[in-house]
C-alpha cells in the first residue's frame, strides 16, 4: 500500500472513532506527515495524534490495526506508550482547566450574592418605608431604622427578636394575626391593609401595611416581609407642606412648577396637547374694579376651567397672574379651544359687575417626545404672544419650523455686531455683464459674511439697526478701492456699483454720505452708480432725485414690475432697474410677459438688469427677453483678486467666456 493510500485508510479509521475538527484533506495531510515521521520518531506522532484530538476510546486500536501490516512491532509499541502518556497529560490539562473554571464560577456566584446582599442592605437601610422581616411565628428577624422611628424607637435593632404582634393595636391584633397566617400558609401571596400600631409611648399610629411572603430554596414560605407607611398627623402635615409647594394658594390649582413636572412625566410618547391661556384685558378688571374683584374673578375662572379639565381628564395649572395652562391627551385642538372660550365667555357677576371674559391661547399639539418640558412651555408661551398680537379671543398653534427659523435669525442677528467688529464682514466685487457684447460693465460691491448672500446680510443688518453704519462703511471702503483702481488702471478700471439696503436708501444723510465718500476717495462721480432699494422711491423718498442732481447715476434694486413701480419710472430719473426675478425660460408664458415688461421699461428710457444670474443659459434667457445686463455670472472676487486680474488682463476685468 502506498503512503497516500495508507493515510486515507488511517483517516477513515480515525474519524469514525473521534471528532477531528479539520477537513478530510487537512487530516489526510497531517497523517501523511505522520507516516513519514513514524519510523524515526513514533513519540512525536503520538503527540500529534493527541493534539489533533484523535483520542476516542478506539482511536489507538484502529491506528495499530491500520499501521501493523506496514510497520515493525517496536515502532508501534513506542507509539502506543507515547500515546498513552500524551493522553494522560492532556487529561490532566483539561482537568486543571475545568477546576479553574469551577473556582472562578464559585467566586463569581459569591461576588454576585454579595453585590445583591449589599443592594438589599442599601434598600433596607435607606428606605423611607419601615420594613420588617419576621419568621412565621411573628418574631422579628430584622427591622430597619425607618420602622423603629414610626413606632417611637431609635434603631431597627431594638426590634430584634421581639414579637411583631406586640406592636399591633389591640383593636386590630386578632384580624391582623389571621391575615398573616393566611399568607404564611401559602393561601394568598400577601395583603394590604390600613391599621393602627402602638408607639413606644403608647400613642396609636395609623399605618399602611403591605405584607408578602419570602420563600426558601424549596419554595416553602419561610418569612414574612412587612412594609409600613406612616399615615400619622405629622406625616400628613409634611404632605400638606408638599402640597403648598406645588399649588397656587389663591385658586388651589397646581402651580407652574408642578405643571412642568406633570408635563415631563407625560413626555413618553403620549400624544399631549398644551394650552397656554392668557385672559384678555384682565388688567382692565384689576385696575378698574380693584384687586379683590380680580382675585374673585380668577377663582371663578379656575373653577370653570377645573370643570372643563375634569371632563377632559386634563391637567390644569395657574402659571402666572392671569395665565393658566392646560394639558390634554389625544385631543382635538379646535373643539377644546371653543370649549375654553365658552367656559370663560359666560357672563360672571362679581361684586355686582357683570363681566364676560375671553382668553388668548397658545397651543403646542403633539410635540415630539424628545422635547423637554421647559421647551414646550416656552413654545406655548411664544404661540400665546402670537395669538395676543392678533387681538382678543384668538388662538395660535406653535409652528416648530417658524420657531427654529426665528431663533436661527435671532441668533445670527445677535452675532452680527461682534462679527463686524472682528472684521468678519468682507466686501467682494461681482461683475456686471453687458448682454449685447458680453463685456464687463463694472463691479458691484457686496457684503459677504459667512454663507450669507449680500441681500440676506443687508436684511439682517436692517433688523439689527446695523445697516446704516455697515452701509456707510461699504460706501467708503468701496469708493476708496475703486479710486485706487482708477489711479492704477485708468480707463480699464471697472465702474463701481453699490446696492444699498432699504434703510440706507431712505436715510436722509445718504446724499451727504455719498458725497463725502467721493470727496475723500477722489473717485470721479461718473464712475459710481448707486442702486436704491425700490421701496424707498415708492415711499416717496427723494434721495434718487437729489443724487441725480448731484451727477450720480442711480438704479432701482428689487424691481418687481408692479404698476406702482412702473409709474415711479416716469417721475424719478433712474438709469436702470434691477430685478431678482428667476430667469424667464424661453417658450414659457413668463418669457412673453417678461419681454413685454422689459419693453415697457425701455419705453421709459430705463435699462433693465437681472441679479443672481449664475449660468450662461440663464443669461441667454434674459438676453432673449430683452434685458441689458446681468449680475452674478462670475463669482464675486475680493479686491485683491480683482486687482490681480486687472493687472494680468489685457482687456477690462473678468472677461466673460
Amino acid at each position: 500500500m502506498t503512503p497516500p493510500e495508507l493515510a486515507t485508510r488511517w483517516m477513515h479509521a480515525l474519524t469514525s472513532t473521534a471528532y477531528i475538527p479539520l477537513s478530510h484533506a487537512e487530516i489526510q495531510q497531517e497523517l501523511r506527515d505522520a507516516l513519514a515521521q513514524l519510523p524515526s520518531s513514533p513519540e512525536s506522532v503520538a503527540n500529534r495524534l493527541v493534539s489533533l484530538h484523535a483520542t476516542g476510546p478506539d482511536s489507538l486500536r484502529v491506528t495499530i490495526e491500520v499501521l501493523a501490516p506496514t510497520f515493525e512491532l517496536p515502532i508501534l509499541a513506542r507509539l502506543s506508550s507515547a500515546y498513552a502518556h500524551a493522553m494522560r497529560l492532556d487529561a490532566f490539562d483539561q482537568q486543571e482547566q475545568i477546576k479553574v473554571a469551577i473556582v472562578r464560577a464559585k467566586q463569581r456566584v459569591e461576588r454576585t450574592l454579595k453585590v445583591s446582599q449589599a443592594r438589599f442592605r442599601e434598600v433596607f437601610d435607606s428606605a423611607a418605608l419601615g420594613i420588617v422581616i419576621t419568621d412565621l411565628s411573628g418574631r422579628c428577624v430584622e427591622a430597619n431604622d425607618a420602622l423603629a422611628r414610626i413606632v417611637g424607637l431609635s434603631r431597627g435593632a431594638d426590634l430584634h427578636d421581639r414579637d411583631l404582634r406586640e406592636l399591633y393595636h389591640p383593636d386590630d391584633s386578632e384580624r391582623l394575626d389571621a391575615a398573616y397566617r393566611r399568607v404564611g400558609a401559602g393561601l394568598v401571596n400577601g395583603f394590604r391593609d390600613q391599621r393602627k400600631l402602638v408607639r413606644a409611648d403608647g400613642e396609636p399610629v395609623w399605618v399602611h401595611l403591605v405584607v408578602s411572603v419570602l420563600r426558601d430554596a424549596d419554595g416553602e414560605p419561610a418569612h414574612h416581609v412587612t412594609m409600613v407607611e406612616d399615615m400619622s398627623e405629622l406625616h400628613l402635615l409634611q404632605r400638606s407642606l408638599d402640597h403648598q409647594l406645588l399649588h397656587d394658594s389663591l385658586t388651589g390649582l397646581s402651580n407652574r412648577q408642578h405643571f412642568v413636572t406633570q408635563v415631563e412625566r407625560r413626555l413618553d410618547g403620549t400624544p399631549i396637547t398644551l394650552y397656554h391661556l392668557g385672559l384678555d384685558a384682565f388688567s382692565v378688571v384689576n385696575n378698574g374694579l380693584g384687586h379683590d374683584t380680580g382675585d374673585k374673578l380668577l377663582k371663578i375662572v379656575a373653577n370653570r376651567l377645573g370643570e372643563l379639565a375634569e371632563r377632559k381628564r386634563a391637567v390644569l395649572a395657574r402659571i402666572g397672574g392671569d395665565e393658566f395652562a392646560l394639558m390634554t391627551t389625544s385631543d382635538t385642538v379646535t373643539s377644546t379651544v371653543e370649549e375654553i372660550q365658552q367656559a370663560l365667555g359666560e357672563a360672571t357677576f362679581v361684586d355686582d359687575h357683570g363681566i364676560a371674559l375671553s382668553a388668548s391661547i397658545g397651543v403646542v399639539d403633539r410635540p415630539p417626545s424628545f422635547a423637554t418640558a421647559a421647551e414646550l412651555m416656552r413654545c406655548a408661551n411664544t404661540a400665546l404672544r402670537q395669538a395676543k398680537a392678533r387681538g382678543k379671543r384668538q388662538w395660535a398653534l406653535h409652528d416648530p419650523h417658524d420657531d427654529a427659523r426665528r431663533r436661527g435669525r435671532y441668533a445670527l442677528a445677535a452675532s452680527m455686531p461682534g462679527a463686524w467688529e472682528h472684521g468678519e464682514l468682507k466686501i467682494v466685487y461681482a461683475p456686471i455683464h453687458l448682454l449685447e457684447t458680453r463685456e464687463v460693465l463694472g463691479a458691484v460691491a457686496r457684503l459677504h459674511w459667512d454663507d450669507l448672500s449680500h441681500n440676506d446680510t443687508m436684511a439682517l443688518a436692517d433688523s439689527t439697526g446695523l445697516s446704516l453704519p455697515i452701509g456707510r462703511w461699504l460706501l467708503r471702503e468701496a469708493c476708496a478701492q475703486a479710486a485706487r483702481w482708477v489711479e492704477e488702471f485708468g480707463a480699464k478700471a471697472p465702474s463701481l456699483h453699490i446696492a444699498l439696503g432699504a434703510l440706507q436708501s431712505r436715510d436722509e444723510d445718504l446724499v451727504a454720505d455719498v458725497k463725502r465718500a467721493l470727496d475723500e476717495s477722489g473717485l470721479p462721480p461718473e464712475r459710481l452708480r448707486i442702486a436704491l432699494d425700490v421701496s424707498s422711491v415708492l415711499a416717496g423718498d427723494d434721495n434718487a432725485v437729489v443724487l441725480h442732481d448731484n451727477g450720480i447715476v442711480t438704479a432701482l434694486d428689487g424691481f418687481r414690475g408692479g404698476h406702482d413701480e412702473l409709474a415711479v419710472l416716469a417721475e424719478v430719473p433712474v438709469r436702470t432697474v434691477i430685478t431678482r426675478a428667476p430667469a424667464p425660460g424661453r417658450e414659457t408664458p413668463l418669457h412673453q410677459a417678461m419681454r413685454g415688461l422689459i419693453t415697457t421699461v425701455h419705453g421709459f428710457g430705463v435699462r433693465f438688469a437681472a441679479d443672481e444670474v449664475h449660468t450662461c443659459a440663464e443669461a441667454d434667457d434674459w438676453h432673449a427677453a430683452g434685458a441689458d445686463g446681468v449680475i452674478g455670472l462670475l463669482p464675486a472676487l475680493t479686491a485683491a483678486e480683482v486687482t490681480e486680474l486687472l493687472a494680468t488682463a489685457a482687456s477690462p476685468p473678468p472677461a466673460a467666456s
Partner: protein
Amino acid sequence: MAEQAGRIPEGVDTGRPSAARLYDYLLGGGHNFAADRALAERFLRAQPNARTIARLNRAFLRRAVLFMVDNGIRQFLDLGSGIPTVGNVHEIARRADPRARVVYVDFEEVAVAHSRLILEDDPQAEIVQEDMTRPEEVLAATRETGLLDFSEPVGVLAVGVFHFVPPEADPRAVVAAYRDAVPGGSHLAFSQFTGDLQPAEMAGIVEVMKKSQNPMFPRTRAEIEGLFAGFDLVEPGVVPLPLWRPEGQNTDDPDRAGIYAAVGRKI
C-alpha cells in the same frame, strides 16, 4: 467582563451532572466530573451509539458553520454552546475568515466560567450568561457585547440544544424571536434528538435524563420543520444528521444517528 448582579446565580454543584459536561465526556474530553461520567455510562447503555452521535453532531456544527461562511456569514450566535471541547465555532469560522465574530450563549455556571477562561483574551468572541429560551434577554446581552451587527446577516446556531427545550417553553416562539431579530439572509443551523429513527433507544435516553438537571424532549421531523417558519430550508432539508451535506463519502449509518439536522435561510 461586567458583573451582572441582577440575577442570583443558582450556584456551583459538581455533584450534579450537567448536559454540557456529559457531551464533553462523550466527545472524549476531560472537562467532566465523576457525576457526569456516571450519567454518561447510563446514557451509553440506553444509546450505545452515543459517542458516534456526539462526534457526528460536532461534525455537523463544523459543516454548518463553513456552509454559512460560504454564504457570506461572518458573525455567529451560538445558543447553548456548552463546554467548548474541540472545534469551537470561532475556531472553525476563523480558519475560513479571521474577521469572524462569535457570541456564545450558555446559562450553566461552570460552562460559562470555562468559556470565559478560553475566550478571555479574545476580542472577537464572548460568552453571555443567559437562558437561550428567553430570547429578549439573550439578544439584549448580545447587543451589549457590541460584537454582532444586527443589520448584517447572522448565523444562529442551535446545534444539539433544542432537545433540552420543553414544549412549555414554546420552542416555535423562541426560534421566531431570534428569527425576527436578525435580517434577511441570516441562517439558522439546527440539530436535535428524535424518536423517529430509533424509538426504543430514544425512549431509554429520555428515561435516563428525566431525573437530571437537563431532561430531554425528542421531536418529530414535522415538528422540527415547523420551527423553521419564516426560513427557507436549504437542501437537503431536515434529514438524519450524517446526511446533511456530508464531506466526501458518508460512512455512518444515518438511521443509527438518532438525531436530525437542518439549516434554514431567513426569507
